[in-house]
C-alpha cells in the first residue's frame, strides 16, 4: 500500500456542533463508494493526534453506512461546552469546515480507481512534497 495525502475536503463534506462538552463532527463521503477511504483516513488515532491537548477525553468514530458518513465524537473538547467555554466558537460550529482542509492519507491505487481527484495530492502530510 502506498499512501498519498489529500485535503479531507476532497473525500468528504461535513457539519459540526456540540453535545454538551463533546464536539460532534459529521463527515459524509462525497460518493458512497468512497466511504471506506474516509473510514480509513479519519481514525480515532488521527483525530486524537490532530486535536492534541484540546481533546480532554476520547476520540470516537461511528459509522453511518446508509449515507456513507462517519460521526466523530471528540469527548470533552469544548472546555465545558457551549455555556461554559470562553472560546469565541463555544459550540464548535466552525470545526467541521476547518477540518476539511487538513490532509489525510489515502491509498494511491484505490483512490485512483475510485475516481478520487488527486490533483492536490502530495507525498507528505504538510502538503510540501508535491508528487512527481
Amino acid at each position, binding site marked *: 500500500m502506498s499512501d498519498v495525502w489529500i485535503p479531507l475536503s476532497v473525500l468528504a463534506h461535513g*457539519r459540526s456542533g456540540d453535545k454538551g462538552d463533546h464536539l460532534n463532527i459529521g463527515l*459524509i463521503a462525497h460518493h458512497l463508494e468512497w466511504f471506506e477511504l474516509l473510514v480509513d483516513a479519519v481514525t480515532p488515532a488521527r483525530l486524537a493526534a490532530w486535536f492534541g491537548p484540546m481533546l480532554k477525553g476520547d476520540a470516537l468514530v461511528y459509522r453511518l453506512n446508509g449515507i456513507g458518513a462517519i460521526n466523530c465524537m471528540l469527548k470533552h473538547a469544548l472546555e465545558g461546552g457551549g455555556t461554559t467555554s*470562553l472560546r*469565541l466558537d463555544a459550540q464548535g460550529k466552525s470545526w467541521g469546515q476547518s477540518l476539511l482542509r487538513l490532509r489525510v492519507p489515502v491509498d494511491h491505487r484505490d483512490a485512483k480507481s475510485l475516481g478520487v481527484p488527486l490533483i492536490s495530492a502530495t507525498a507528505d502530510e504538510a502538503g510540501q512534497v508535491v508528487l512527481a
Partner: protein
Amino acid sequence: MFEAGCLDEFGDESPPSSRIIRIGGGGGFWGDRVDAPIKLLQEEPLDYLMFDYLSELTMSIMAKQRARNPTSGWATDLTDWLSVGGMEALHRRGVKLVTNAGGANPEACAAAVLEIAASIGWTDARLAIITGDDILPRIDDLLESGQKLAHYETGTLLQDSGRSLLSANAYLGAGPIGAALGAGADIVITGRVADPSLLVGCMLDAAGWVENANEQNLERNIPIDEWAPESVSEPLDVLAQWTVAGHLVECGAQVSGGNSSDWASIPELDKLSLPIAEVGIDGTVAITRAMHGGGRVDRRIVAEQLVYEISDPTAYITPDVVIDLSEVTLTEISTDSVEVAGARGKPRPPELKVSASLEDGWFASASLLIPGPDAIERAKACDATLRGRLDATDLLICSELIGAGITLPPGIDSDEHLVEPAELLLRWAVVSNNRDEVIRFTREVAPLVLTGPGGVSGYGARGRPRRQLRHWPTLLDRTLVESSVRCDVIGTKDVSQVREIAHQTAAARRGQHGRGIRLLGRLHDGLEYSQLTRPFARRIATRVPEVLELREGSR
C-alpha cells in the same frame, strides 16, 4: 381532521396509509429570521408549522429573564412575527402551530399569543399550554427523595456542585402535544420539549394515534408507540421515521441550504427559504422546501443535517423512541426533494434528560484590532500587557488571536495553513467568581489603545459583567416528571386570566430566585405551581379519556 391544503393533491380517495402531512420548519433558534415563517405560511400549503426556539443555553437565559420580569422568559420572536401577519396567515390557512417558544414562562407566552389572536378578530382560537417540564420548584423534594441528579458526563452529584441552581427542565416528549392537538388546539405552546418531538406530536394527531388512544381509554403516560392503531405493524419504526423528520427540520433552513459546505453554490442565500417535511402517517418521509425563495434541498444538504449534533448513531435518544440512524438512506426523488428511509426504532428510555443550569461566576469579553506588520507578535505583546495589569487571583482569561488559526487544532497552525496576517482581532473572554475582577478587566481594555503596542484600535463601549452559566445535563426517572405534566386548553376570552397566572407564577419563582436556591436543604415554600394554575382553565389530558370528553364537549 385533515383539512389542510396538501390533501388537494391526493384527494379523499388515496388510501389512509399513504396520507402525507406537510409540516413546515419555521426556524431553528431564538434569534432566527423573523419574516421567514410568514412567507412560508403565505406561500405553501401546510398542515402544521413547528418552530424550535430552545437550546441548552436559552432555557437558563429565559429563567433569568423571568426572575426579573414576570411577563418575560419566553421567545419573544414568536410574537414578533405573529403580530405582523403571521397570526392572520395561520388562521386563514388553517395551519396549526406547535412551538416550544414558551421556554421558562409558557403562560406569559400564551397570553401574548392570545392577545394577538384577539386583535385580529380570531375569537374562537384555542391554545394549549403544556407545562411540567420545569422541575426547579420540585428540586428539593426530588433530592430529598434520593434522586442524585448527577451530571451525566462527569458523574458529579448536583448537591456537590456548590452552585446555585437557576433552571432545571426535563425534555418532554410528543405525547402531550398530540393530546393537545387531538383536543382541538390551534396553537400549542410548550416549555422544554425535545426538538424533534414537536413534529412527532403533530403526527400523533394527524395519523389518528391520539384518537385511537382515546377510543381505547389508554393511559397518557404509556409509551406512545402503544397508542398506534392495530393496523400499524411497526409503530416504533414509524416513530423513528417521524422523529428523524423532526430532527431534520428542527434547525429550520439548516436543511434547505443554510450552513452548508456547499455554500458557494446555494442559490439566493439572501432569500433562503424554510424546509417542509412531507411525512406519511405510515412513516414515509421526504424533505423539501418552500419554493418561493432561494436555497436547496439535496442529498448532501440533508446528510449534513442528519449528522448534526448526534452522538452514537445507533442510539439517537429522544423521550419518545431510541433511533438507529446507521442505515438511514437519502434519495433525491425530484428537484429539492429528498426521501429519507430506514430509521429503526427501539423502546423509549426509562429516564428523561434534564437540562439544568447553575450560576458559575461572572463573565465579560472584549476585543481589539491589531494591525500588522508582525500582527501576531504585536497581539501577544498586547495580551501580555493586559494580563500584567490585572491583579487577579480568580480570573480565568482566554485570549484568542482571531485570524491566526483559532479554528484549527493547536499545532496545526503552521505551514500551508497560516500566512502572516495583515491584521488580527485579539479577543479576550474572562470569568471569575469575583465580579470586581471582571470589572477591572473591562476597564483595562480600552486604555491599551493609548498604552499598548502601536496601532491598536477598535475598542467599543466598556463591557458589563454578566452571570456565567454552567450547563448541567442529568437524567431523571420519567415517571417523576410525567406525573406532573399538564396540558391546559384555553380560548381567546381567557387571556386576562392567563396573564394573571403568568404574573403570579413568575412572582413566586422570583421569590425563590432572590433567596438563591442553594441545593443543600429545603429553602422554598409557599405557593405550589399546581395551585396557581388550577383555577383558570379547563384542565385536560391528565388522562387521554378526558381529552376525548373535552373534544366532544367542544363540538
